[in-house]
């Protein structure tokens, strides 16, 4: 019965968003489709477009362009989309540094920005903006969750991140909740590919747990090298360290790694099951967490556009803030700074039918909020 009800509400929500909008809506998506980071951008685009396609709505156009992970290019594209294409909403940027180049000036020009991933602290606190929404998380959240989890079973942690703002936010977030002793706090070079020196320090440190934040290729390199080192200390990290975009490249070396995430493919709710099935049917692969975040961002935009015109920024913003969507993550609400309030789970890398994926273990945080919302005056 419950299932039937859920299916019915889902059908209902699809049909309401299937209605034509009061006015056509134009969305500009700037994301990384070329170069080393293209995997994340492609998942972002595909997740976003899946939601648009599912809605069946003909009044939405999405203009997509590649930023090649270069901030200057992202700025140029944003200028073009705003000045030439006349988009109403911008979205899609994966990286914090590109977001910082684009979002502040986009909202200053009166455009909405709905972030599908990047969520720097600088835009969550005193510099928050009523036109800026984040559908993913706040950068610190997943690291905070691992700090909370580490309290339970670890007494002496070795923590490591790249030497750039997101890396510092990461370790700050971890330390905000972790109460035990720190064996060492190490910052590595951005884009570093050899971690032998750091692994040797881990071995010698006497730590009983290791927390690493190394996104993309850095994490792949670290996990492979760590598996060969003979060091037996458990490794954990935020969800993107073991997300679906990197797991196949790490291989079995990732088995057993613990991570935090707002979503995993085994989530037992209707929206998640439908999303997973649709995504696999459409693109023939498992979606990563970036795809989910972009999918929700598109759903949020559609839900608001169904009830208000984007030309009326206050009304549209108010509808967005209601977050009236069926997220694969389950619960999803916006905080006062327009960043999510959501549950965060512990996941573990397992092998199912020969495919590496993340399995949910337990809930770490319920209705988790970020630490910056109190400084935000909207």
């Amino acid at each position, binding site marked *: 019965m419950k299932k039937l009800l859920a299916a019915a509400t889902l059908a209902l929500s699809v049909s309401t968003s299937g209605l034509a909008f009061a006015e056509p809506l134009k969305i500009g998506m700037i994301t990384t*489709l*070329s*170069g080393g980071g293209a995997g994340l951008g492609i998942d972002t685009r595909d997740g976003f477009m899946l939601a648009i396609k599912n809605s069946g709505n003909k009044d939405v156009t999405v203009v997509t*362009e*590649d930023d*090649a992970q*270069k*901030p*200057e290019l992202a*700025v*140029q*594209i944003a*200028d*073009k989309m705003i*000045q*030439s294409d006349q988009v109403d909403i911008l979205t899609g940027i994966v990286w*914090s*540094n590109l977001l*910082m*180049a684009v979002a*502040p*000036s986009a909202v*200053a020009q009166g455009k909405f920005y709905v972030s599908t991933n990047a969520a*720097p602290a*600088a835009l969550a606190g005193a510099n928050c903006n009523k036109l800026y929404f984040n559908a993913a998380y706040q950068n610190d959240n997943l690291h905070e969750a691992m700090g909370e989890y580490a309290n339970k079973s670890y007494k002496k942690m070795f923590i490591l991140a790249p*030497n*750039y*703002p*997101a890396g*510092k936010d990461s370790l700050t977030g971890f330390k905000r909740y972790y109460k035990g002793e720190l064996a060492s706090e190490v*910052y590595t*070079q*951005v884009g570093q590919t050899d971690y032998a020196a750091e692994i040797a320090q881990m071995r010698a440190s006497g730590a009983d747990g290791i927390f690493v934040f190394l996104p993309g290729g850095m994490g792949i390199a670290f996990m492979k090298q760590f598996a060969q080192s003979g060091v037996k200390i458990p490794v954990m990290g935020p969800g993107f360290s073991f997300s679906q975009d990197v797991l196949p490249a790490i291989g079995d070396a990732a088995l057993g790694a613990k991570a935090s995430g707002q979503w995993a493919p085994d989530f037992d709710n209707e929206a998640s099951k439908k999303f997973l099935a649709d995504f696999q049917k459409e693109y023939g692969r498992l979606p990563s967490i970036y795809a989910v975040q972009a999918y929700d961002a598109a759903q949020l935009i559609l839900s608001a556009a169904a009830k208000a015109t984007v030309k009326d920024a206050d009304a549209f913003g108010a509808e967005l803030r209601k977050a009236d969507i069926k997220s694969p993550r389950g619960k999803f609400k916006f905080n006062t700074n327009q960043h999510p309030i959501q549950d965060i789970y512990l996941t573990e890398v397992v092998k199912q039918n020969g495919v590496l994926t993340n399995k949910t273990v337990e809930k770490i945080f319920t209705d988790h909020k970020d630490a910056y919302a109190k400084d935000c005056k909207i």
Partner: protein
Amino acid sequence: MTRENLINLILAMLLLAVPVAANWLGQPFYVTLATRVAILALAATGLNLALGLGGLVSFGHAAFFGLGGYVAGILASHGFSGEPLVFGFSGTNQMWVIWPVAVVLAGLVGLAIGAISLRTSGVYFIMITLAFAQMVYYFAVSWPAYGGEDGLSILVRNQFPGVMTMRPMSFFLICYVILLTGIGLFAVIRASRFGSALQAARQNEVRVATVGIQPYRIRLTGFIVSAMMTGLAGALFADLNRFVSPSMLSWHMSGELIVLIILGGTGRLFGPLAGAALYVAFEYALGGITERWQFFLGLILLLVVLFARGGLLGLLAGRARHG
């Protein structure tokens, strides 16, 4: 008027006409694009002093470009927050203060890098300038005070007395005037005794030394002036994007500046402008057609190097008079 001068004049008029027309037609984005062309052309004109006249293939001019950008960004952020900078100086959002600071700092760093690098020559020079730029790049990525890898936003474009800089057309005109001044300066230097010595040092070092000119000093001076102009362009670029980040310092940027010069025509007065216009047009047009635009951009560059020696101006105006 020679054929090349005529083409130069047409180029200069075109760069003005396109944004004026775009502005009139209500397409401000093309004004932004033209501004980008003007700024990149200025940066490349700076590099052309070292590379075209002096034969100094600097693969590290992104260091000066980024430095200028960071001067604009850092002064603006202190001006915004009101926090004092070093030695009791305060920040500012006035371009006429930012520009001299950017020029002087780029010159000083140019002196330091040039003094060591110019002891070497040929491939060593290419590589050591690259290494210095990488050093500055990694410093900017790792240093937390001004945003590190995330870069630094300039929330409101810096001011110039009597001009509404936030309006694309006004800011374009500022950049356009500075570009023409820079190109004029290049012409004056090329025709001067110093310029002759710099070119002579490229063509025959021994002969220059025998007439009592020290090639090292001439080159160092040329390198410093070159760094200053590129630094100024960096400050403008930061204001165009209202943002500065380490990617302005990356070796790809250094490579792009060289590309601009070669596309237009090495050592030519208007080569950098022609190259910048062509490059931005390629990037914009190809980016709109295909996701694989970088592949085709590479292909075009390769064809230009292999078959169109002398670049765009070489094709249009024939071989350069000087070697």
